[in-house]
């Protein structure tokens, strides 16, 4: 790890000020479960590290009307164990419970996960599948516009994710085929239904990160049942291929995971 100047702001405003001062050479530290390993490998070498762990008001879970607000610094374990999340969006609590391992869940945060936008990460699928809004210190960004590509987001320099707002769906579930070694998604599908709106979001498979499946959504709008997906397939073009799975195998898994997610959402 290369040397850096360490800062521990108390407010989002101070953190933003420090980021601006660092002028592109600063990085925010949340749970550190991605950033620290990357810095150890010297793939990242920020001149200034701005630790968000002492910033007031960045973590917590609250149900406001029909929206679930989750602070950016809320840890995976706290989402997984939250009674509020388990009641409002059980599929989201289950997703958090399936991230990595207990020690990773005790440090890693939702804000860090979505800002990082790893193409195999779980939370991006929930954000897209539930039509979440990502709130930053500057604006509100719909999930549909937030995830712009592999490890890439709509966040601008100096922008800090402060919370994520999830509209509470009628039905939602996540199914992941984990890589047996890393537990990241080889393919993960999040399905959400709210009124007549149905969303199907896929992570782990796309060469450009998380994406939606309009054909699957249309079929499920007609009838929200796993059978509605019979006969639908996903082309292997544009999917990831690596030592773990070929694009063809991932395409197949998407169909299987999507059906399982729909059945799970229906409580079957």
């Amino acid at each position: 790890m290369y040397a850096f100047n360490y800062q521990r702001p108390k407010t989002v405003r101070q953190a933003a000020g420090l980021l601006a001062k660092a002028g592109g050479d600063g990085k925010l530290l949340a749970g550190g479960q991605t950033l620290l390993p990357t810095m150890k490998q010297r793939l990242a070498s920020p001149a200034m590290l701005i630790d968000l762990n002492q910033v007031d008001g960045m973590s917590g879970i609250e149900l406001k009307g029909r929206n679930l607000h989750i602070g950016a610094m809320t840890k995976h374990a706290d989402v997984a164990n939250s009674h509020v999340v388990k009641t409002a969006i059980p599929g989201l609590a289950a997703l958090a419970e399936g991230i990595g391992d207990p020690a990773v869940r005790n440090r890693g945060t939702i804000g860090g996960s979505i800002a990082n936008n790893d193409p195999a990460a779980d939370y991006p699928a929930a954000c897209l599948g539930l039509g979440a809004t990502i709130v930053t210190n500057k604006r509100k960004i719909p999930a549909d516009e937030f995830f712009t590509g592999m490890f890439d987001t709509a966040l601008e320099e100096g922008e800090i994710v402060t919370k994520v707002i999830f509209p509470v769906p009628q039905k939602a579930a996540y199914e992941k085929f984990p890589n047996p070694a890393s537990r990241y998604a080889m393919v993960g599908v999040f399905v959400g239904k709210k009124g007549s709106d149905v969303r199907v979001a896929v992570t782990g498979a796309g060469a450009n990160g998380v994406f939606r499946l309009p054909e699957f959504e249309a079929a499920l709008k007609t009838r929200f049942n796993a059978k509605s997906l019979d006969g639908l397939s996903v082309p292997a073009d544009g999917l990831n291929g690596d030592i773990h799975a070929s694009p063809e195998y991932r395409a197949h898994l998407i169909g299987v995971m999507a059906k399982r997610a729909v059945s799970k959402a229906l409580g079957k």
Partner: protein
Amino acid sequence: MASVTMTVNGKSVTATIDPRMLLSSFLREHLRLTGTHVGCDTSQCGACVVHVDGRAIKSCTALAISLDGAQVTTIEGLAADGHLHPMQEAFREHHGLQCGFCTPGMIMSAVDIVNRKGAMLDEHTIREELEGNICRCTGYHNIVKAVAAGAQAMAATKVAAE
């Protein structure tokens, strides 16, 4: 260099450190608490698991400076009055180790599992919960047995103390 203060195994420690120092290095090199092992240094193996404010974390994936004010418990902090902690005793009794390298992390994770999930742990739960701890010797079988027995022993000790 920057100053950090934390409580490690019940003792307050203050030190001036490089902000780059990982919690694992702080414990091992600064405090000479070498029970916490570093197996992979890439956040995978769990040999370095310690408790920070009552939660199991990988000490190789946390900056010491970021834990200013924290309560840290390492494997050295488990035994009391010269007696092994019930989970340590269970690993001994059930032959839950061979080379022993993974053991400190296994035991710290196991105690955390009991704290979260209670004393009655089935095999499936234990195996799932040990996802972040790798052992290259035992094949896990006796580790799983040790955790199940240690969990019940912890509950029994607690009842006896009340």
